[in-house]
């Protein structure tokens, strides 16, 4: 069996569309995850009584169950309760649900890594609590949290490949589709690998740059 370049040329546009779908779902899913993560990390750091327990339970549930099952539950399970979300909504909510806990842990780690003496120094220098948070704590927390957040972003991009199971036409869906229709396994897998490299390599490189940019010890 030989590699059929003309097949690749013919169906490359499919993969471009698939890539756009992957980007669409991932970007919104990740933004949601970051928002959820911020709220949860805030709740945990501030030790808000009841909310804190809820956040703990959420984090355990989200971290210990697979995204595919979460998606099936949202997509096929919820309609039985009368809640019908579109596949896109399910995918974004699913990614946000899964990613939120990972983001929360990374951000909490960043905040907790700021030594207490930094807060004390700010106090002694007369800074107000807002000034302390914005000028002293957050910049340092961001610096420590970034590597974790970047790793999570890449992780979530990859996880998004399972949305094909709920009929969203992402790159994975395209690959499976072409294999199923034309039995062109090589070519489809080749385009799949290329598509993920095209999406994730720049993100990985950007992530490394970002880590450097915010690493006060190294720039």
């Amino acid at each position, binding site marked *: 069996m030989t590699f059929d370049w003309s097949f690749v040329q013919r169906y490359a546009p499919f993969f471009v569309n698939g890539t756009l779908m992957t980007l669409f779902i991932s970007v919104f899913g990740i933004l949601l995850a970051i928002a959820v993560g911020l709220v949860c990390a805030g709740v945990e750091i501030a030790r808000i009584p009841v909310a804190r327990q809820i956040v703990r339970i959420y984090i355990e549930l989200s971290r210990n169950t697979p995204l595919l099952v979460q998606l099936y539950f949202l997509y096929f399970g919820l309609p039985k309760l009368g809640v019908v979300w579109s596949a896109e909504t399910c995918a974004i909510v699913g990614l946000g649900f899964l990613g939120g806990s990972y983001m929360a842990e990374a951000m909490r780690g960043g905040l907790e890594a700021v030594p207490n003496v930094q807060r004390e120094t700010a106090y002694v220098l007369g800074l107000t609590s807002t000034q302390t948070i914005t000028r002293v704590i957050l910049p340092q927390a961001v610096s420590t949290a970034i590597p974790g957040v970047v790793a999570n972003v890449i992780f979530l991009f990859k996880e998004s490949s399972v949305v094909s199971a709920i*009929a969203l036409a992402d790159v994975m*869906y395209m690959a499976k589709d072409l294999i199923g229709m034309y039995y062109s396994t090589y070519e489809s897998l080749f385009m799949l690998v290329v598509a993920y490299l095209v999406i994730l390599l720049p993100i990985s490189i950007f992530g490394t740059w970002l880590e450097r940019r915010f690493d006060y010890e190294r720039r």
Partner: protein
Amino acid sequence: ACGPSAGTPSEAKSSDTGTSSSANAKARSLDEIKKSGKIKIAVFSDKAPFGYVDKDGKYQGYDVYFAEQLAKDLGVDPEYTSVDPAARVDVLTSNKVDLVLANFTVTDERKEKVDFAKPYMKVALGVVSPESAQITDVSQLDGKTLIIAKGTTAETWFEKNAPNVKLQKYDQYADAYNALLDGRGDAFSTDNTEVLAWAKSNKGFKVGITHLGDDDTIAPAVQKGNTELLNFVNDEIVKLGKDNFFHKDYQETLEPVYGNEVNPDDIVVEGGAV
């Protein structure tokens, strides 16, 4: 070592594990199959009444009924592998199974990749839709969403002949049906036998198009060039045809579902003669 199995006692995973490699992906000879005492057959596990797993976890259905007979005549036990529609070619080309008996429609593209035996069934495509918004003609689907399962003839047909239909593709039949039930698409298309059977037991749904495309045949498939097994299967089909075996199969597996709405001769092919 064997992987564990779930679902059925009768089903065991392939006996060669992931890390063991055979010299090549060459198909097993009849002798090898006999010697191993097991024939590996790919069937559906969620496509009642053709191939499904019943409440006791046993494989059942029209395809499985035939598979049981084949294995018996070969003097071995059947070992079933659950496949998705889209995987049916690949399980053969990569020699994961000896035989595919999964409602496999004979098409020209597929003939290039696998060898089909004589047919044991014939179908055309059908389209099922909610009674409240019946689809009775393909043109009604323009701009609408049609649910299909990946790797089925329905997919290929609509891709080729109805570019204005938005296709929503699922890996598995179970998912596709669920999507239809939840109103995620306007209709679902696959082999007409299948949709007929489904619509019959799902209130509120009706098969608006019963016959679409050419009349296709359904046949067992083996790896390309595995003539030994192919010949055996062909001989079986001819031999069984003499006893009207497939009508009996129909009675056992399909009739309880189709009732008398369908004429068995519209579906069953005896002795490989269409």
